[in-house]
C-alpha cells in the first residue's frame, strides 16, 4: 500500500562500502525482486528498508514520508526471514498474535485477524502447535501468516524459500504469487538469488552487483534487453554463451553473447559456427549440447525434442535471429546500432 523511494542510499561498514548510492522508486502494489550474487548487497538493502540496518546516508521515503529515523515497528512493514524466525516457545496462534498484542489491540480483534489469516493460508489446524512440531513448509506459512496479521504497508521477504526443498519451493512460490494477487495494493520486496523466483514472481527485477543497481526492469526486459554483460550472464539458465576474439570482432564488439535456446542446428555449410559435440546433458524435455567450436569454452546449445546426436559428431550452428545476438564492449556495456 505504499510507494517507496530510495534516494542516494549508502551504507558502509568502516571503510567498506556495501551499498553505493542506490536510487530506486518502488510503485504502490508492486512486487519487486532484488537479485544478485552473494555479497551484492541485496539483503543489506532490504535491511535498510526494514529499519533493522541503519543507512550511512541517503533518504528513504514511504508514501513521500521520510522514515529514516522511524523504528522498524512504526514503518508499517512485515518481514519474512529465511530461517522462519518463529518464536520457538510460542504456539502458532501466539506467534501470529504477538505483534498485535504488543500494539495493544483488543483481544477480539486479534482473534478475528489471526483466524482470518490462518484461513487464508490454510493453517487453521496448526494454531495450537509449537513451531518445532511443524514441517519446513508449514513454518514458512506461519511466518508469512505472522507478517500478514500485522497488516503492513510493505512486505519484505528475505530469501524465504531457500531453506525448503525443491518441490516445496515450487509450491510456496505459487502461493506467494497467489498471495500477492489476492492482496492488491500491498507492496512486496523480495530478496532472492534464485532467478526462477525472480522471473516468475516479480513485476520488476532489480539486479544488484557490488552494492549498485545493475539494471531495473520487468522480467521480460531483463531477459531480452540486458543492459550489461553481467545481467546477461546472471539471468538465464543455462547461462548465456559468450564469444570473444575473432568470433566477435567482425561484429564490432569485444564480446558476443547468445543464449543457448537461441541457437539452431543447421545443415552443414549454412551455419556461422561449426564444431564437434563434446558432451550432452539430457534433461528429458530439453537437451543441452556442448559444442567445441574453437572458443574458450564449448558453446552450449539448448534443443528440445531432438533425436540423440552421437558424441564427437560434427555440427553446424546458426543463431536463430539476429536480434538474439547480444554485443558488448570491453566494459561489458551493450554496443548499440552498428
Amino acid at each position: 500500500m505504499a510507494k517507496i523511494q530510495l534516494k542516494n542510499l549508502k551504507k558502509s561498514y568502516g571503510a567498506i562500502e556495501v551499498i553505493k548510492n542506490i536510487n530506486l522508486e518502488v510503485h504502490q502494489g508492486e512486487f519487486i525482486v532484488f537479485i544478485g550474487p552473494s555479497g551484492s548487497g541485496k539483503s543489506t538493502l532490504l535491511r535498510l528498508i526494514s529499519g533493522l540496518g541503519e543507512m550511512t546516508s541517503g533518504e528513504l521515503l514511504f508514501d513521500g514520508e521520510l522514515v529514516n529515523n522511524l523504528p522498524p515497528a512504526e514503518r508499517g512493514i512485515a518481514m519474512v526471514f529465511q530461517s522462519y524466525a518463529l518464536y520457538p516457545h510460542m504456539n502458532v496462534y501466539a506467534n501470529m498474535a504477538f505483534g498485535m498484542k504488543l500494539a495493544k489491540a483488543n483481544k477480539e480483534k486479534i482473534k478475528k485477524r489471526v483466524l482470518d489469516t490462518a484461513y487464508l493460508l490454510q493453517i487453521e489446524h496448526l494454531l495450537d502447535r509449537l513451531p518445532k512440531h511443524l514441517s519446513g513448509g508449514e513454518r514458512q506459512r506461519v511466518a508469512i501468516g505472522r507478517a500478514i496479521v500485522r497488516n503492513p504497508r510493505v512486505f519484505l521477504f528475505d530469501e524465504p524459500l531457500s531453506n525448503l526443498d525443491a518441490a516445496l519451493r515450487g509450491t510456496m512460490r505459487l502461493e506467494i504469487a497467489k498471495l500477492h494477487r489476492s492482496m492488491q495494493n500491498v507492496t512486496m520486496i523480495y530478496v532472492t538469488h534464485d532467478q526462477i523466483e525472480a522471473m516468475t514472481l516479480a513485476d520488476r527485477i532489480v539486479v544488484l552487483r557490488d552494492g549498485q543497481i545493475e539494471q531495473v526492469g520487468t522480467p521480460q526486459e531483463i531477459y531480452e534487453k540486458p543492459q550489461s554483460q553481467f545481467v546477461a550472464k546472471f539471468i538465464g539458465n543455462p547461462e548465456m554463451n559468450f564469444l570473444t576474439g575473432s568470433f566477435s570482432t567482425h561484429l564490432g564488439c569485444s564480446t558476443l553473447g547468445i543464449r543457448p535456446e537461441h541457437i539452431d542446428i543447421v545443415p552443414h555449410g549454412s551455419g556461422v559456427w561449426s564444431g564437434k559435440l563434446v558432451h550432452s546433458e539430457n534433461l528429458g524435455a530439453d537437451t543441452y549440447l556442448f559444442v567445441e567450436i574453437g572458443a574458450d569454452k564449448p558453446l552450449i546449445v539448448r534443443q528440445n525434442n531432438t533425436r540423440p546426436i552421437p558424441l564427437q559428431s560434427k555440427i553446424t550452428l546458426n543463431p536463430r535471429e539476429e536480434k538474439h545476438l547480444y554485443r558488448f564492449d570491453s566494459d561489458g556495456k551493450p554496443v548499440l546500432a552498428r
Partner: protein
Amino acid sequence: MMKQTFKNTAFYIFVAVLILFSVFPFYYAIITSFTHGGALFQVQYWPKHFDFINYKTIFSQDNFLLSLVNSLIVATITVICSLFLGITAAYALGRVTFYGRTLLLLSILAISMFPQVAILAGLFELIRFFALFNTRWALILSYTILSLPFTVWVLTIFMRSLPVEIEEAAIIDGATPWIIITHIFWPLLRPAVITTGLLSFIGAWNEFLFALTFIRSESLRTVPMAIAFISGASEHEIPWGIIMAASVVVTVPLIILVLFFQRRIIEGLVLGGVKG
C-alpha cells in the same frame, strides 16, 4: 561375548566407585547425625539405631531457625539481583555492539578468577562506605558480586547462541528491548537461567568467609556461621552429632531445589535444541 561382559562389569564397578567416593561423606554425615554420646566415637558404616535427639536439639534453638530464615532471605535476594543484572548485562554483551565489548567480557572473566580473600579488604571498605556493615544487605551485595561474573559469562554465551532473526522478528513486531528480554529471551534462556540461578543460590547459601566478616549480630547469622558457632557443653567438646544434624537440615532444601528444577532444565535444553 566374554569381552563385552567384562567391559560392562568394569564400567559398573567404575561407576560404583565414583558414586561411593562422592556420596560417602554425605552418607557418613547423615549416619553421624543420628548418633550421640559415646556412640559418636565408634566408627560405624551402617546406622544401628535412629536417634532424633540431635534434630530436636537444633530445632529447639531459636538462633538456628533464625539463621535458616536469614540464609533464605539472603540467598533468594542474591539470586534475584544477580539474575536481573546478569540477564540484562548478557543482552548488552551478547547482542549490542559497542566499543570495548570484548575487553569488558574478558575482564569479567578475569574477575571471577580472584580468590575471595583478595577482595575481602576492598569489599569491607565498600560495605562500610555504604553503611551496610552488619546488615543482610552486606551479604546480598557481596554474594551478588561473587556470583555475577559466572552468571554474566554463561548467560552471554547462551544469548549469543540464540538466532538473531528471532530477535529481529520481535523488533519488527514492535518489541522494545525490555519486551525482548522478558517475552523472548527469558523463556528461551530458561535452562541457562535456572542453572546459573541455582548455582548462585547454592553459593550464597553455603558462603562462610564474607558472612563471618560482615556480620556481627547473632540474629543476623546465616546457616554456615550458625553451624560453625554451635558449641558443646564444655569448650573441650565438639558436638559432632548436632553439627551433622544441622548440616543435613541445611542441605535438604538444596537437594529439593535441584530435584525440582532438574526437569525444567532438561525440558529447556530440548526446547533450545530445536531450530525455531
